[in-house]
């Protein structure tokens, strides 16, 4: 039997090495640390078995962060799909200035999320632009970011505004792939705008919807920068996501072992929803 080694493409080895060093090794190390009481900087630590995980199950702050993570993930994804599709439908029309319109809608994607967060902080802070407008009309200044619920809604809004351009681009590409003849046939059959949208556009956008939902969902579930810039996870623990809680637990409370356990929870959360999305994707593929 002839060896297959000679036929093997070894060009992937550098990529594999990088993947092993920067993804696999830290991942395995993260799992190991989750079973220790390491403080994040000492050379000494103890293995504590499943203690971190049992504490995690009863931790009110982790439950809050998990709930917030789901809110950020699904809230942002929902809004991004609705707005992204609306923008795509609008900017798919032929009119003067649509290229500029597309560019403006996509531009925020290019800005760093931290910068976007701080820009919005300057708008929303007590002496910020929004309160200036309110006082201009005789209103009283509002502490926008000091109530958990309001702050969460604002974080979702800022994240949505930043990344809806991604959805728009995906939907635009999807819309441009739908053959015009379907619309012409529907038009001849007397189908109105809504009917054409529900009967042709939406079903044929299915692959685009799945791509967009997956990308936005993963982005939303691991949301970090905007939260850090706008609220830092506060007030209290009210706006923490699992990602920001992990950071605060590791560096702030110096509980690296416990933070690693939170990291595993975050990994599992994203993993489960990605698998579900992939499953839905395989079942619902449409041929035309």
């Amino acid at each position, binding site marked *: 039997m002839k060896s297959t080694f000679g036929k093997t493409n070894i060009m992937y080895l550098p990529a594999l090495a990088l993947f092993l060093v920067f993804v696999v090794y830290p991942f395995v190390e993260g799992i190991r640390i989750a079973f220790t*009481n390491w*403080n*994040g*900087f*000492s*050379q*000494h630590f*103890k293995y504590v078995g499943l203690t971190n995980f049992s*504490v995690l199950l009863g931790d009110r*702050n982790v439950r809050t962060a998990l709930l917030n993570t789901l809110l950020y993930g699904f809230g942002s994804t929902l809004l991004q799909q609705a707005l992204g599709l609306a923008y795509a439908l609008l900017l798919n029309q032929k009119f003067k200035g649509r290229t500029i319109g597309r560019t403006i809608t996509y531009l925020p994607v290019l800005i760093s999320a931290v910068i976007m967060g701080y820009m919005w902080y300057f708008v929303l*802070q*007590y*002496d910020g632009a929004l309160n200036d407008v309110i006082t201009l009309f005789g209103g009283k*200044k509002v*502490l926008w*970011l*000091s*109530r*958990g619920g309001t702050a969460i809604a604002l974080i979702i809004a800022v994240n949505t505004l930043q990344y809806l351009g991604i959805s728009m681009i995906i939907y635009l590409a999807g819309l441009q792939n739908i053959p015009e003849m379907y619309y012409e046939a529907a038009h001849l059959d007397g189908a109105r705008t809504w009917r054409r949208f529900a009967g042709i556009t939406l079903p044929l956008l299915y692959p685009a919807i799945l791509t967009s939902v997956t990308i936005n969902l993963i982005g939303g579930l691991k949301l970090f920068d905007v939260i*850090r*810039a*706008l*609220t*830092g*996870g*506060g*007030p*209290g*623990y*009210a706006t923490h996501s699992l990602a920001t809680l992990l950071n*605060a637990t590791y*560096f*702030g*409370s*110096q*509980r690296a072992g*416990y933070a690693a356990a939170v990291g595993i929870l975050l990994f599992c959360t994203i993993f489960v929803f990605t698998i579900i999305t992939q499953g839905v994707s395989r079942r619902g593929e449409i041929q035309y």
Partner: protein
Amino acid sequence: MKRLGTAILLGLVAWCLAAAPVKLTVALNFPATDVTFTNIQAIAASFVKANAGVQIDVVNLPDYENTMKTKMAANDLPDLWTTHGWSVVRYSEYLRSVNDRPWFSKLSPAIKPVVSDASGRVFVLPMDIDMAGIVFNKDVLDQAKVDPYAIKTWQDFMAACEKIKAIGKTAVDIGGKSGDDRWTVGNFYDWVAPSFLVTDAKSNSVEALADGSFDWNKWKPVAQLLVTFRDKGYLNPDYTQGTWQEVGQNFAAGKDGFGLFGNYLIGEAKKYNPKGHYGFMPVPAASAGDKPSLITGERTAIGVWKDDKVMDVALKFLDYLALPQNVNLVAKGNAIPTGLAGEGYRTDAGDLTPYFEKVKGFKAFPYFDRVYLPSGMWDSMCITGVGLLADSMTIQQAADEMGNTYRTLMAK
């Protein structure tokens, strides 16, 4: 010919290696604009001038605490670094003991217990001593007819706050923004907690805090004071979104009466209004049976990495830093007492000298979180404080949260 070429090449390499300067990195937690940074930089420059072949990089590491934690985890540290209050609890594992240095016997008695571990080992050169109370804007207090030195208890303090509030000023500027500025709220606890739990010689929780048996229900009065300040309208109106920079600006603009910060608040206010009149007073007691007190700790404390490759040079520079002219320069820059005492060492607090005279005789206690709590509690103090201010936590929840973190960290 070939041999000659090789010999010349090897010679050149050896000469280059021999001529390469010894490089020291001194990491500071002070930003490059801070007076301490520029003073250390100037001292380093004079050391380099006197010691040919030595090069010193004085650097401010971004996100200092977290960067240092990462460096410790990797056991790859700068040659020397500042320990910002944590020379014993956090950094001692990585620092060389300095008990054998020639200046060790000159350590000021006011700072020696703060920088010593249980066995008496010291790991840093404390160039100055953070000696703090409650900072005030004298112009505002005069306008409100408040005598800061007549304030003995928190009740007296609140009566003074009422007077300041009555003239339309903010009595206490807490900052308070969640995120990067939440330390301003943690600082409130650092100032208030000792009066409830530490300073009263007859009844305190020092032992219980140390042995892990502390009942966190005793935290409630501390947390309650913060909530009372908020509910009575003593705090800055944006008490959940105020930044540290704004505290300095408001203080300078004469909008605030008190600030529960070290004298660095005076330095910050002077940036915006150098002509303002600022002073400091002792921290009030929680009960009439106790006395007001001061807060003390490390300010500019520098240690040497225990595994340093150029230990001799690093120690030589540390000894150089300990010379009277250098210690005096750094302490004067911060307007606080010198960390070494004896011949040549002289405290020059500038405008604050009369205030230091006034607080002489008051007992000083270390920063609450650095000595009485396990390392890692600071964040919980900040987070629960912000949570209370924003009403997203009850006092019971805040005490429970503090207790949970405390027990976890004590169990290590």
